[in-house]
């Protein structure tokens, strides 16, 4: 089961850019691609904690601003030789409003 909460509208995020959702269990980076798809990843690079929301968005991926690891939005996995994986979260657009699924975050508390 998913728990969707509204976090804003698509227009709040620049094309090929990102904004941050602050939560009590860490920040989530919400990205918007050139095709107006939205994706969400933890906003902390598994390498050394770089804020992925500040990276360059290209195709379906983002490049970490600190040491250039490239993370795929679909899987959260680093491309190429790197092996880190960052947690992904579901986001959807309903009537222009952005909905984020916080099930994964909620589960963190339980663990």
């Amino acid at each position, binding site marked *: 089961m998913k*728990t969707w*909460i*509204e*976090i*804003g509208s698509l227009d*709040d*995020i*620049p*094309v*090929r*850019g990102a*904004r*941050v*959702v*602050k*939560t*009590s*269990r860490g*920040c989530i980076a*919400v990205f918007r691609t*050139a095709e107006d798809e939205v994706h969400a990843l933890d906003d902390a690079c598994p390498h*050394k*904690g*770089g*804020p992925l929301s*500040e*990276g*360059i*968005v*290209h*195709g379906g991926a983002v*490049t970490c*601003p*600190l040491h*250039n690891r*490239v993370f795929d939005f679909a899987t959260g996995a680093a491309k190429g030789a790197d092996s880190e994986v960052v947690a992904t979260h579901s986001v959807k657009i309903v009537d222009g409003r*952005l909905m*984020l699924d*916080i099930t994964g*975050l*909620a589960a963190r*508390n339980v663990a």
Partner: protein
Amino acid sequence: MTQNLVVIGAGMASGRALEELFKAAPGAFRVTLFNSEPRGNYNRIMLSPVLSGEKSYEEIVTHDDAWYAEHGVETRFGEPVERIDRARKVVVTAKGETPYDKLVIATGSSPFIIPMPGHDLPGVIAYRDLDDTNKMIEAAASPGAKAVVIGGGLLGLEAAAGLRLRGMDVSVVHLAGHLMERQLDEAAGYLLRKALTERGIKIHCAASSKEIYGQGKVEGLRLEDGTEIPADLIVMAVGIRPNTAVGKAAGLAVGRGIQIDDQCVTSDPDILSVGECVEHNGAVFGLVAPIFDMAKVLAKTLLGEMDAYAPVEVATKLKVTGCDLFSAGDFAEGEGREDIVFRDPGRGVYKRLVLKDDRLLGAVMYGDTADGSWFFGLIKDGTDISEMRETLIFGPAFQGGQPLDPMAAVAALPDEAEICGCNGVSKGGIITAINAGAHDIGAIRGTCKASASCGTCTGLVEQVLGLTLGDDFVVPQAQPVCGCTDLSHEEVRRLIKARELKSQPAVWQELGWKSKDGCHVCRPAINYYLLADWPLEYQDDPQSRFVNERNHANIQKDGTYSVMPRMWGGMTTPEELIAIAEAAKRFNAVVKVTGGQRIDLLGIRKEDLPLIWKDLNDAGMVSGHAYTKGLRTVKTCVGSDWCRFGTQDSTGLGIKLEKRLWGSWTPHKVKLAVSGCPRNCAEATCKDVGVICVDSGYQIGVAGAAGMDVKETERLVDVATEEEAIEWSTAFIQLYRENAKYLDRPYKWVAKVGLDWVKEVLSDEAERKALNDRFDISQSVYQTDPWAALVTEEERKSWSAPLATVNLEAAE
């Protein structure tokens, strides 16, 4: 006594002949070289890449002033020879007479202009030299301009493709039934036509031109069938005629060309001739390969050595990027001839071999021409191919059943196989050069000349290098920008200018990017190139910038930022220091004095950035751009204001320079310094631009480095006044902005283009002024304080505040 050698025409033929002569016997002749064109020798066959914008004129110059000076050649460029007085052994020009002991006529050929009505209207040109090329480039610059090229042969199609790349609406009118009918059969002609049509070039074959119409200038071309094609420019590329005028007037034996014997001597024993102006055994010439052979013979004859010119087969390639075709030998149909044809329409590949009596007579290839030289070798040598007939069409890689290996084709070539058609260099010749020490492409070009002319064989030469040197040779490639493209930074920069690409999507589409919207490597580079080349038209894209430039602050390893206000020339005031101190306290910053004569506030959270900026702005300070590929600091020393050795106001000049240059984006960061005397307390001799003040004025050094490499500056110029120092420094930086590869500091860029070139450009006062003007235009957009721009309430919110804040405990 040294003899006087006079040469008429500084083209490709005489250029090669002089090289051969100076190599064999430096100083044997005192040479005077006349040329109608107001310039020396350049690689004429590369005019097409210049036209298309893929090369610049500077890149195709084969002999520069230094070369002529080194060999004592007296150059008389822009001075055509009017006649030869053979009785008195002098040549006559508008400026007087020049005596000769030996004379070489190398006047090339003239383009043929069809004398149809209207052929003399302004806007009708031929395609022969740099001036024609520049006229075409100029015509293509006006928006919506249309061109008609008459003639669908090699030259006409190269002109059409180049004009099209420059954005013109181009039609080709060709008399024969298919394009390049002298070199291609109908099938290959069709594929070529299709490829050109796909690029937006309109092709009319079997079309005969009737007249050019227009009032006072070209307005269009009318065909025999009544069709009218509107045009602002008409290029006639219908053929060439040997340029025999001076020889004929002097009474030399002239047929179609100036007649020469096997030693290149004309009917006058003291007059030799070479190149497209000659006729040898009834044949005339239009490609450089046989002309270069002739040039070698001519040099020998001049030195009294025996050699004889012997005609060879020639192969043809079209220099239109993306249209690969090759043709050699005789491919007409005929009695007893057989064809082997291979087609792969999916890949657009067509190959046809014409055989007779187990020998290869001709080859035509389109789309995949890698095996061209191998087939060409079989044709020239008359090799018996009966053994490999079955697999012949698949090329050398397939003979003997080896797997297809890109190196195999070259490995399979015999030593005699010709690799460089233009210069007639065989595989064996290249190997000899390699064994004699030429271990890269530049050295090969310099010694045995392979790949030095049209360059289409460069890949093959590199493979020979690879095979001969083994692992010691890494095939060098103009490094592509990134995985999204095969183009190098330099090529992308040139194409952005030449094709007037003014947005990132235009670059991705027109230059065939392999990714959808680039990547973190190319996007910042392209964003920079576009804003540097089109400051008024292009809009800077923050999403193509590294985090620091997007957030106007340096990100730290813990995700906080550093904030550094400008301190012009390293000067500050008590009021500024108090404001900095208060801001530091309010936002809990760590304070550090930097190596750049200013103060850094470290550990600021992103949401606080607009707030601390506002505090600093309110105290009259602006961003120090300590995070940009742009102007950083101008360090100064106390100078003549205080120091007992100071010769000039170094602090004042530093402040002026910083105020002029701040805010500008550059390929990499730029740092300056001004020292008040040669004791150099501001460390100006290791900066990108460093000024040392002396009694007589200012010494401007450039291209220093003190980061990962350490390098002293090199002297650009000495000037007397502050104004000149600022003008020169700005011009240097603008030249760097317009030409360098992204992430090359000035010292790296200067190492590539040469300080001599930089000096040459900048010593032209008009050019210096133009560079300053273009810099001003860019500054009219970019000299703004990014901090002030972002401190309005609304922007601050959308920029630094979270999109949403979620309390999970409450949500559960």
